[in-house]
């Protein structure tokens, strides 16, 4: 059983580039319907499949993702 993880996304800094969506191996992330104050659709977590692999955070050009993983 894979470890469980979680992500915290700084939605105000997100530019909605979708690079993290392509990097996530478990399709945990998607773009929101809402926009942030700059008008970008930001990344949100849409299911509980996160394993805390941090792939999304490593490729995020704007460093908006913080990753947690159970010990």
């Amino acid at each position, binding site marked *: 059983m894979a470890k*469980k993880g979680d992500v915290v996304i700084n939605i105000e800094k997100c530019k909605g580039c979708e690079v993290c969506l392509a990097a996530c191996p478990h399709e945990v992330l998607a773009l929101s319907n809402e926009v942030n104050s700059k008008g970008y659709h930001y990344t949100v977590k849409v299911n509980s499949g996160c394993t805390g692999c941090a792939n999304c955070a*490593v490729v995020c*050009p704007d460093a908006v993702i913080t990753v947690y993983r159970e010990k």
Partner: protein
Amino acid sequence: MAENLIKPENLVYEKTKVLTDRVMHYCPGCGHGTAHRMLAEAIDELGLQGETIGVAPVGCSVLAYYYFDVDMTEAAHGRAPAVATGIKRVFPEKTVFTYQGDGDLAAIGTAETIHACNRGENILIVFINNGIYGMTGGQMAPTTLPGMKSSTSPRGRDVATMGNPLKITELIAQLPGTYFVTRQSVHTPGNARKTKRALKKALEYQKLNKGTCFVEIVANCPSGWKMTPVQSNKWMEENMFPFYPLGDIKVPE
């Protein structure tokens, strides 16, 4: 599954403190942001934040000094290796890097780049190659691929009239002053992690006074290439990598 994992002891990844909290001005999906972070993480992991001096270029990354929380200075267009030479000679105990794009390093600053590398200055040169002049509106650069469209080569780069692309990294690797020359990318998690390892290696070699270390990062330019970020990364894999193959070009024996 109601357990809350968001606790300090579960933290596995957060933005490094070597990057400031400022929102970067780069376009969505631009490789500059990831390249900045990999360099910042390499500096952080080696504990060099307090003794690093960076030199920002002219180009999209002209404002790099806002994003790195280390001492930074700005150089005239293309002259970052010359400025870094001066800084390193005055402060030989400091870690000195330049961060330059292809228009800065391979066009305007070709002379400074080649001579700094040939003299074997103990600096790290980080070279971001996206094959285009991003900041000024996507004009053709020396690194633009044959047949690649840009705003000044709208029908594609015609080698017969516009000349050949410059593989400056291979050229630099021939010089006796360079110690470690490599080409990486940051578009996938694996590639980004490899880039960080290469940057860490280069910073460690600088501590040993081994000569110039040169790390090229092939990057995307979604706005200049007129693609979405994900499309541009795919285009880069299919078109840029055959011409600019990833991997180490010169490694210490």
